[in-house]
């Protein structure tokens, strides 16, 4: 119980810290939303009046409190470039990024799990060395370059999809997913390499333990030991890796959305930065960071559930 409370407090402090940094970061920029609204020609008095009515003249902590309250209720103000509420912008774009990231993580796991098992079964065999080589190469490929290559091969040469096309979720869910598959590959392949390597190391460490020999001497087949005993234990350290993978998948999505022209959070963030639309930028950052932090919290909780040793140390 004490463990949970400690973790929960850490979670809240981290979220507060992140929200404060996000808030503070956009306070340092010269020019505020009053200037943005009235333009450069506005007189000092007009600016002062607008600032007063927008509450921009209040002390910083009062403004931070308001920012926090608004963030919790999901009110992030209005976007200056689209002139709609930031909340509605996000609710439109978040699902795209969420699906892309989820699909990418799914691919990472589904591809690297069998690969890791294969590599561990015969260390330094041909397959192991070949996969190590492949994974090292793919780690060096930036996701957006991989995206461009995928577009070139599957979109332009093989014509499996139309580059730049996007099917909205509400219109046709199946079509939407089929158009997410390619970007998800671009996000996940560079990470598959890392995960496979990690899994292999973890499996090999487990295989060296005595219980494997015991299981073997009582007559269990190698395959049984691998799937029934070793894999289960080897997956425990992988769980901690999971939070990082999701963060990576989200980060990859930010860039890859641009390659495949997907209207997600990443594209929104990038155009907002280019247009200096700061209410959108801070909301997007807060959302993405918040999701990462909460997922890491869940991962921590799961980890200690699976491996009670963590609670003690």
């Amino acid at each position, binding site marked *: 119980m004490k463990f949970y409370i400690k973790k929960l407090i850490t979670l809240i402090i981290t979220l507060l810290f992140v929200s404060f940094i996000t808030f503070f970061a956009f306070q340092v920029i010269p020019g505020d939303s009053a200037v943005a609204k009235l333009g450069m020609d506005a007189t000092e008095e007009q600016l002062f009046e607008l600032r007063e009515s927008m509450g921009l003249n209040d002390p910083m902590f009062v403004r931070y409190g308001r920012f926090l309250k608004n963030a919790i209720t999901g009110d992030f103000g209005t976007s200056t470039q689209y002139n709609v509420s930031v909340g509605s912008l996000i609710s439109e774009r978040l699902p795209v990024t969420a699906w892309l990231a989820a699909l990418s993580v799914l691919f990472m796991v589904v591809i690297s799990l069998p690969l890791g098992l294969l590599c561990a079964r015969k260390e330094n065999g041909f397959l192991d060395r070949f996969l190590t080589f492949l994974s090292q190469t793919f780690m060096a490929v930036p996701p957006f370059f991989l995206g*461009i290559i995928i577009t070139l091969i599957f979109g332009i040469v093989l014509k499996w999809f139309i580059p730049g096309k996007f099917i909205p979720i509400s219109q046709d869910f199946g079509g939407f997913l089929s158009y997410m598959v390619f970007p998800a590959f671009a996000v996940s392949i560079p990470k598959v390499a890392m995960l496979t390597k990690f899994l292999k190391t973890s499996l090999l460490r487990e295989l060296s333990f005595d219980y494997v020999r015991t299981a073997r001497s009582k007559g269990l087949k190698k395959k049984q030991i691998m799937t029934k005993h070793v894999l289960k234990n080897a997956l425990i350290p992988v769980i901690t890796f999971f939070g990082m993978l999701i963060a990576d998948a989200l980060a990859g999505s930010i860039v890859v959305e641009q390659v495949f022209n997907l209207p997600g959070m990443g594209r929104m963030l990038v155009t907002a930065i280019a247009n200096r639309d700061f209410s959108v930028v801070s909301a997007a950052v807060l959302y993405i960071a918040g999701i990462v932090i909460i997922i890491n919290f869940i991962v921590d909780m799961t980890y200690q559930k699976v491996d009670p040793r963590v609670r003690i140390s």
Partner: protein
Amino acid sequence: MGKQKNRLNFIVGISLVSFALLLVIVGIFYTPYDPNEMNVLAKNQAPSLSHLFGTDYMGRDILSRVMEGAFTTFFVGIATVIIGATIGSILGAVTGYFGGIVDEILMRINDAVASFPSILLALVFVSILGTGKYNVILALGILFIPSFARVIRSEFIIQKEMDYVKSASLLGASHIRIIFLHIFPNTKAILRSAITIGFNNAVLAEAGMSYLSLGVQPPDASLGRMLSESQTYLFGAPWMALAPGLMIVITVLGFSLLNEGGAWHE
């Protein structure tokens, strides 16, 4: 077996790095064409003898632009690592050596920063500071401080318990002397490895940011930006994407193979 593999890693790694470095260094003094010279008559040309990597949509020679872009990439990578490694090592050394409440606070901040996707923080930085080569370096340099601090800190925690540190302290060496003259030289191997990984991450991050048009700005050539420009012409002129993309892959792969091959751990 393992030794052989390391040797292979080393040979391939050193070849790739040498190739990349050669292009960069030659590019400082000589490029086949002016990287920014447009030529309407030679738009979107496939690779040929006169243009080894072909030309882009404005008729600029891609090889020359890759050479210049790779220089920017190396410049940003090295500068970022210098900022991150210097400040990070000092922070890591001091916190690891002394421990205590400052260490605790810095490590918490470290954890918070580390749990973020780094490109997200880099984008926040440039949205505040503005884009351009130097702001990218500043943003990435600051962002990379925690990773260096973490590595050096954990090494210091191990080393400070060792006998040579205790005897140095008994001989009356000051803390500063112990930190910088006794322990620091022993973190060299680990620091080299961290620098290689940091350089690679900086190269990838710069490319990503420039690809999003939020990194290095024209007239500075940049591999990431070349990639984003290439996308419109992917159908007719795929070489526009391949040359800068492969240049990034060669650089990053080369350095990571060198690192794996144990080139640094002598």
